[in-house]
């Protein structure tokens, strides 16, 4: 359908990258619309050239020479102006940026020809999607619908450029609440799971739930209306929740109640505890240390502990032998060393490490189990993501929404590092993993010191695509995220943006009209930049087919924290439904809670055929703590004999 015609003047010429066209006053064209310039073949300067463009700006004006003339005509009365017998001639003039020219060489100015509304096929051509939607190994991943003038044309991303190896990573930004960042990622993940090309192998996703119940109900069906279902159909997506979702959450400080909003009785059984021990944490101690603490000496001592001490039989040099596997073991070692140094009175150095450095490291490591109580176990077995056994098309949700920020950093750093290690060794179980991180500005801020997490995110951004480790990051303000992290994202998605954010230099390439559209973008609409698209494209996506977090907590209200005994019962019942609660309560009635926690953790880890029997056996044998070493009286190093008091 012809909607307009290209015009060019000396002041506003048509160029190879931009052109102007006019339309009737009443038109379906708007900012973001895709148009095709193609001559009728009669009298047009076309020569078979077809140009696709996207509307980036719009102008309207009349033949009024100056505003004063309108005042004169109306004799100063606006009502009279509206009642003028003739409506002035007006123009709707549009500016479009070229998306594609066919043929592409020689690159020439856009011909002054007719402008047509784009069809489905035109949209595919304009966005160069024809290159990856056809052929023996199509790699299209539906991302949304291009909607303009009643058209609903699917827009696809290229999996090779979204998930590697050509390019990778996705960054999505927009104001909270209206930008639908989480919803967009949920739809895109569903799309990836349903359309990830088989020749590219298996794919999984690890999502960090960092706020509220956002990602806690991905396996539950949400409410969709007819328009959503139609959009799903146009996108070729099944409107259904994720089939395989595994939830991980640390415990609360009590060590038995899970620290998540997914604690409703019907759902909590799916949530696996996330518990890490010393060995799991020590490699990431840098994350946990104060930034001021990080120095070469502390670093060297931590490396020493990691390489020479933890998990090995270790002689402290004062006659003691230590098998350090837990924080408690480590603390005993520290005490032995300090006591030994004091008793020996020989120096402040122990194996080239200064006692002050050791005290600092001891203090910081000791704090970990306090600050991250529930996530880090002082003593006892850990429970982790299924490294090496990741399953195809499975979402692994790690809920750290209520975890101390330090703990969030630790979880994030360790999970991503482990993913990287396994992907490098090709033994994760899948070939590609999408890691979704919200509030990216917190983990990789544009300014501030270089933290372990930031460095790790930079590393993923720059090298992840070769490994299949793909970062989907979301944040409110893109300008507040490290340039290299967003710069390495092959695909960039924008939801509704704040005007102040749009005024920052990163958005200078956008036209004022596009900025206005971004600032007023309705829920469910996004602007997408992708390596194949030479200009940003606006797309609309359906509501996710999963239960939204807010709806989820209404339908499945979180259960109140259970008393210690009940929480233990619940966990054993989960392992074996025939477990009798009273039996469990009787068993643990006179036990030290720490013993119970350790036994429970071990039972959960081993998953024996008869959990209760195993649990009872562990308790009976007093699995846990070694008695704290008796502290011998230590004489002062410099007794002041004359001190009268």
């Amino acid at each position, binding site marked *: 359908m012809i909607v307009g015609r290209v015009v060019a003047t000396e002041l506003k010429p048509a160029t190879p990258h931009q052109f102007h066209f006019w339309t009737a006053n009443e038109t379906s064209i708007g900012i973001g619309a895709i148009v095709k310039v193609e001559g009728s073949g009669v009298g047009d300067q076309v020569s078979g050239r077809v140009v696709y463009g996207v509307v980036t700006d719009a102008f309207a004006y009349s033949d009024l020479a100056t505003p004063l003339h309108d005042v004169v005509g109306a004799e100063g009365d606006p009502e009279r102006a509206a009642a003028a*017998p003739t409506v002035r*001639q007006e123009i709707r003039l549009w500016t479009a940026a070229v998306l594609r020219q066919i043929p592409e060489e020689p690159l020439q100015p856009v011909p002054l020809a007719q402008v047509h509304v784009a069809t489905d096929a035109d949209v595919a051509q304009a966005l160069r999607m024809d290159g990856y939607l056809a052929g023996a190994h199509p790699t299209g991943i539906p991302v949304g619908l291009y909607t303009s003038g009643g058209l609903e044309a699917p827009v696809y991303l290229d999996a090779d450029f979204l998930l590697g190896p050509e390019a990778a990573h996705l960054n999505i930004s927009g104001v909270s609440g209206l930008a639908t960042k989480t919803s967009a990622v949920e739809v895109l993940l569903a799309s990836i799971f349903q359309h990830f090309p088989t020749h590219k192998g298996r794919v999984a996703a690890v999502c960090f739930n960092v706020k509220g119940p956002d990602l806690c109900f991905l396996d539950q069906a949400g409410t969709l209306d007819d328009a959503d279902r139609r959009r799903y159909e146009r996108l070729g997506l099944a409107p259904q929740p994720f089939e395989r979702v595994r939830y991980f959450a640390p415990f609360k400080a009590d060590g038995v109640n899970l620290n998540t909003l997914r604690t409703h009785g019907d759902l909590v059984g799916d949530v696996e505890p996330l518990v890490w021990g010393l060995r799991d944490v020590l490699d990431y101690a840098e994350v946990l240390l104060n930034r001021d603490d990080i120095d070469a000496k502390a670093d060297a001592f931590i490396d020493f502990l990691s390489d020479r001490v933890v998990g090995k039989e270790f002689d402290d040099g004062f006659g003691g032998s230590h098998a350090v596997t837990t924080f408690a073991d480590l603390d005993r070692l520290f005490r032995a060393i300090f006591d030994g140094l004091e008793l020996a009175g020989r120096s402040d150095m122990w194996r080239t490490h200064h006692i002050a450095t050791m005290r600092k490291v001891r203090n910081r490591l000791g704090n970990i189990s306090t600050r991250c109580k529930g996530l880090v176990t002082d003593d006892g077995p850990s429970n982790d993501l299924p490294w090496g056994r990741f399953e195809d098309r499975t979402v692994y949700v790690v809920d750290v929404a209520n975890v101390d920020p330090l703990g969030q950093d630790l979880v994030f750093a360790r999970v991503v590092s482990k993913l990287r290690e396994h992907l490098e060794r090709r033994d994760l179980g899948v070939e590609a993993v999408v890691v979704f991180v919200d509030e990216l500005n917190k983990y990789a801020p544009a300014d501030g010191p270089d933290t372990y997490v930031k460095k790790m995110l930079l590393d993923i951004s720059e090298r992840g695509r070769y490994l299949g480790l793909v970062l989907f990051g979301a944040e409110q303000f893109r300008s507040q995220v490290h340039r290299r992290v967003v710069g390495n994202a092959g695909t960039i998605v924008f939801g509704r943006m704040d005007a102040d954010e749009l005024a920052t230099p990163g958005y200078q390439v956008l036209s004022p009209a596009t900025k206005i559209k971004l600032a007023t973008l309705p829920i469910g609409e996004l602007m997408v930049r992708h390596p194949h698209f030479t200009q940003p494209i606006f797309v609309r996506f359906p509501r996710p087919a999963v239960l939204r977090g807010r709806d989820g907590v209404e339908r499945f209200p979180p259960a109140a924290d259970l008393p210690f005994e009940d929480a233990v019962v619940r966990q054993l019942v989960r392992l074996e439904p025939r477990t009798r609660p009273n039996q469990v309560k009787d068993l643990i009635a006179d036990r030290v809670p720490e013993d119970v926690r350790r036994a429970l953790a071990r039972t959960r880890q081993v998953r024996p055929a008869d959990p209760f029997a195993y649990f009872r056996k562990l308790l009976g044998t007093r699995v846990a703590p070694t008695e704290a070493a008796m502290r011998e009286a230590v004489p002062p190093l410099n007794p002041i004999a004359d001190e009268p008091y």
Partner: protein
Amino acid sequence: MSASWVDAVIAAGAVPAAYVPEASAGRADLEEFTGADPVEDPELRVHPLGEVPPLAPGAALFLDGIERWRVVGYGGVTPIIRAHVAAAVRRRGQDRRPRTVREAARELAVTRLDALAPPVHDALLAAGVAVVEFAADDAGQPARALQAARREVERARLALEQALAEQCAAALGADEWLVVDGVLSDSAVLSEHPRTLGVIKSHGAQFFEGLELERALTLPAGHRTSVFRPRRRGARRDIHSWYVRLWPWEGNDLLYGLLRVEARADPATVAQASRLSAWLERERAPVSTPDPRWDRLLYPIHDVETYLRARAPRDLIPYSASRLPRIAS
């Protein structure tokens, strides 16, 4: 056709030229005293329009024409002129937006055939373009030839306008009025039609003398004169006419905002003169700036002219570089 016939005569030996003389200022009104007979009042009087409800037809059609011409070659000293004349009618309905309902255009070659060399003469005739000749007496001196050519082009435009207006008048609906830019009295059909108005912006013709002339030319804004009957002159038909002042003339000149209106010579015209005038007064907005005649050029007429100009051949528009020496020619 456009430039193809020009190429043909140039190829036949005419010397190419690119000269756009000062274009016609439009239709020339009479520039002599003709006199008028009173119709409405015994002598010319002034009628206020303040409280008069304007006529509000269901639709109004506006007609105007344009002419563009240019010397494209010389056969000896005789200019060969390429001319374009066009006219259009645009209808303004209830949505207040004018839309073209009729239009016509002609391309002409204006010259003196017997003054051209035989090859050029033959080439011109063979090109198929309509050739209009000016008088043999005007063929010698180029300045006179150009004046004669201008008259021929104007005549062609008037003929086109008249033909289009008559077609349009014949098809006018019961609630439609046709407003023509210029006089009605050249056409029997138009001058007798009950819903046709002629709006004349130039005031070369003098119908009154003395106090009546002063009354006509110092008419206050928002007023009209009595209806009068211009005396017949030549082929002109019986018509009713009156003056309307759209804008105050004080501080400008006597003719500022002054229109002369022509309508059918009929008692009904006299009865409607005030309502018709009030309608025209309403047409002051929107103003038709930046046209220098905006004080008396009705916007819908200006709109027709804009439409025709936009559709005229672009190579007939004078351009600043055209007088520079043609290095390559």
